[in-house]
């Protein structure tokens, strides 16, 4: 098992895993010297470990810590070789002292000081290549995975053939430890061609999602998109991820163009229509914004920006500033309603809110008016009149306007509550009259102003002998 000094020297000089830099000195020589020193120190640690045979070192939270690899401790590792995998753990020169058995909350419910494997796939390889005296090379994939879970030294390099690699992948997926899965995936990613990797991952959904997650986190957007394009066309992950990109584009024209490029992606039919709508909306917002900015220069009041706002907000804007435009223009509310198939209710609420805000009561009135086939006009609303009153009142509509709509509330009791709330006395009085509720009417007399028209009206009604009061 033991290697002679010369062998080791040889190994290190020939090793392709030279990224083991512990010092921030840049020059190759000192780096190597440093590594070698460290390797020696590892070996004595390993031997020490071996002496104790079964005694596992246990860290502060009860996790067995192998003394050399993946230790909890990382010393200053300079990261000069940017082309390598990030994070180069350094072997801990201050060994964690032995056997602190015990358990921590975090290890009980959340896990333990794991994650050593998580990023540092490369370290797995490096460690394994320099500590070969600790491992027997014929571990089965299961054993390898098991050792990785325990934080022990393993060599992934011996899994050379594709079949071996896949067996390894399958057994770590079966172990459900994402850190190990990620480590193995990093190894596969480095040693397999993209095509083969993608092909093999396709039927292995768990591993696939781990790689997707890893690539997302490391922002390897290019490979991620390639992977998704290959494996996830049918589940639309790729399309959505591509679409999501637009959120990071600040410039509105670039963003719009990017959205346009998304239109050709094979989305699901529903999503495809939404993305199409999004693009159309963005396109219009840019046009409206540009024209309005130009027109606005004369105006004093600054209008709110609509770029990147939702559709309904845009509609509301157009109801405020472009209400009476003919259906042919991009900014006409009716045109927007048509193009985006906005539901009647939504359109109605938005238009109502906007016109009420401008106190354009005639427009509000017109919204409700419909003619039946005899030519009579009557008020119709896709919205409960209670809600209509609500919206009007929020826009501080005067009582005269409010009472027109309160009167249209079907439910008598609700009508009374609303009328009382908004001081529409006439409606309260008329409703009580219709209900033939003398007691209530009498009670209401106390609430209206003394000597007012309302009081007189109540008195008239109370003295009217033709009404057959129910009480």
């Amino acid at each position: 098992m033991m290697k002679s000094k010369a062998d080791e020297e040889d190994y290190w000089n020939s090793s392709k895993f030279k990224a083991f830099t512990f010092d921030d000195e840049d020059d190759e020589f000192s780096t190597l010297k440093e590594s070698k020193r460290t390797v020696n120190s590892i070996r004595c640690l390993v031997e020490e470990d071996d002496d104790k045979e079964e005694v596992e070192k246990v860290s502060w939270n009860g996790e067995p810590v192998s003394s050399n690899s993946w230790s909890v401790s990382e010393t200053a590792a300079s990261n000069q070789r940017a082309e390598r995998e990030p994070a180069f753990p350094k072997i801990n020169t201050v060994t964690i002292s032995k056997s602190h058995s015990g358990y921590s909350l975090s290890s009980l419910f959340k896990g333990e000081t794991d994650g050593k494997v998580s990023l540092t796939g490369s370290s797995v390889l490096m460690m394994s290549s320099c500590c070969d005296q600790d491992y027997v090379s014929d571990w089965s994939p299961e054993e390898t995975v098991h050792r990785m879970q325990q934080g022990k030294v393993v060599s992934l390099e011996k899994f050379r053939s594709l079949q071996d690699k896949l067996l390894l992948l399958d057994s770590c997926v079966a172990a459900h430890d994402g850190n190990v899965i990620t480590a193995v995936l990093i190894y596969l990613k480095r040693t397999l061609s993209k095509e083969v990797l993608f092909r093999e991952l396709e039927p292995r959904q768990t591993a696939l999602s781990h790689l997707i997650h890893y690539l997302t986190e490391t922002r390897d957007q290019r490979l991620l998109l390639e992977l998704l394009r290959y494996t996830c066309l049918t589940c639309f992950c790729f399309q959505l991820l591509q679409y999501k990109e637009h959120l990071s584009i600040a410039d509105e024209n670039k963003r719009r163009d990017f959205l346009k490029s998304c239109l050709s992606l094979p989305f699901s039919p529903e999503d495809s229509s939404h993305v199409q709508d999004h693009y159309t909306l963005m396109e219009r917002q840019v046009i409206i914004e540009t024209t309005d900015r130009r027109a606005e220069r004369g105006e004093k009041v600054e209008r709110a920006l609509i770029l990147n706002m939702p559709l309904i907000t845009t509609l509301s804007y157009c109801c405020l500033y472009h209400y009476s435009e003919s259906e042919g223009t991009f900014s006409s509310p009716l045109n927007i309603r048509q193009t985006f198939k906005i539901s009647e209710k939504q359109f109605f609420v938005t238009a109502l809110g906007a016109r009420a805000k401008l106190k354009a009561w005639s427009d509000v009135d017109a919204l409700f008016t419909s003619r039946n086939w005899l030519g009579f006009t009557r008020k119709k609303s896709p919205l409960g009149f209670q809600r209509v009153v609500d919206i009007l009142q929020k826009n501080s509509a005067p009582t005269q306007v409010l009472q027109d709509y309160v009167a249209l509330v079907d439910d008598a009791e609700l009508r009374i509550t609303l009328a009382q709330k908004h001081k529409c006395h006439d409606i309260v009085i008329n409703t009580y009259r219709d209900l033939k509720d003398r007691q209530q009417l009498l009670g209401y007399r106390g609430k209206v102003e003394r000597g007012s028209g309302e009081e007189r009206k109540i008195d008239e009604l109370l003295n009217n002998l033709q009404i057959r009061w129910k009480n």
Partner: protein
Amino acid sequence: MAAHLSYGRVNLNILREVARKDLREFLDKCAGSKAIVWDEYLTGPFGLIAQYSLLKEHEVEKMFTLKSGRVPPADVKNIIFFVRPRLELMDIIAENVFRSVFVSRFQAPQFLTIFSPSFLLQECYLENDQTSLYHTAKGLINLQALYGTIPQIYGKGECARHVANMMLRMKREFAGSQNQILPVFDTLLLLDRNVDLLTPLATQLTYEGLIDEIYGITNGYVKLPPEKFAQKKQGEASKDLPTEPKKLQLNSAEELYAEIRDKNFNAVGAALSKKAKIISAAFEGRHNAKTVGEIKQFVSQLPHMQAARSSLANHTSIAELIKDITTSEAFFDNLTVEQEFMTGVETDKVNPYIEDCIAQKDPLIKILRLVCMQSVCNNGLKQKVFDYYKREILQTYGYEHILTLNNLEKASLLKPQTSSRNNYPTIRKTLKLWLEDANEQNPNDISYVYSGYAPLSVRLTQVLARPGWRSIEEVLKMLPGPHFEERQQLPAGLHKKRQQGENRTTLVFFLGGVTYAEIAALRFLSQMEDSGMEYIIATTKLLNGTTWIKSLMDRPESQIS
């Protein structure tokens, strides 16, 4: 300091003490002065086991939060990172370490990195990351090392199955070392959140649940608007109102809170006024104290009475704050719709209330919570209804939410109906998930925690204890994921000899989170005289509908409105 943890049947203080010991030993391992760089998410959980003073005793001189860039200069020998093992954090650490070393190469301190994982449904179902399951299994193995092997394991759901399998496998691997501790738990029940998606979506109606719904409880603390707490001291009324939120710790160490936390909110008022009478009666006691001995006794009780009084004042203020909300029309309307869904009223149509809420641009999370609830209660929405909601949401809140909706679909919270059969009514009837006239004041059933709805997860737990899951085979098959039963061999001599009338203890493990109301319901079951079962609850996360939906949203931070 954390005495409330040791009262229960299972002494949870052991856990806390072990954790503290570990932390101390760990800190002592790095000799010399230290600075700690914290992952912000961990400061809360660590606060549960250790205060700053403890850290200080062990030469921790400085603390920072983890940010990209350089660690602020600190003249210390060690710099320790306490972080969760998340990929995105690793890069920050690498940058921290690199930059620091670059600047001060001659006195480069030691760097240490500590990881402490977490578990979220988001990870499990959205990213399909199963690491958390492994850690859960590992945690349970460690728990068994402290509290003895748990002879019976039950479970329901995909993740539960995985965890149980891993536990059994790990157990086999340690076969050599038999655990000689008398088992504290008789049964372990693993419940996958995926089995009961409905419960977290409903508004919790217990006192604690409502505090969490409205203000959010993080690691046992809640931040409240200060106005109601202001005019405490007389004579200082003219002072400016405090603008800082009032931070309160909530746990059962506070006698009054222990008493009311699990009550339905409608019963809290009565409990508070009863308490007020007791306290004022106790203060009145001073008039009866005649002899020196009596006065002395009265004085000795004063600190306790003072504490009780300030606790009462606090909770009265909180109850007032909550009452303002629960009595509002919006709250009532929302609750009505939720209850309609849970009782199966018109779940297959577009709901006018949801429509109105969208038209009013109510917060998106509220809308999503309701729509998901309707979907879950209807075993998926009719395609037409599904498309309608989707269109309305995207038009009103922005097309980019297509990503969020997609996430919700992946977690099967929101989906179009695939089969025409809606099996929710069968589940509801068999498990008696809805009880008319739930008694809120003096509850006789767990349904009091949602004023009528009995949380499915807790009902499953209840049925398991009696009469057993065999009686509900059919329903179990309708719920997602497998259900199973496993037994673990105990070494001879460790079989419990049960006294007549002694309660059995079940550890209920919620994989993927649990709500305060569910906890209240389980505590209620423990207290029921004839249940014969004591429940200890473990989970990977405490959640409510809002935090849950938020965790599933794409870029939730951009959607605060």
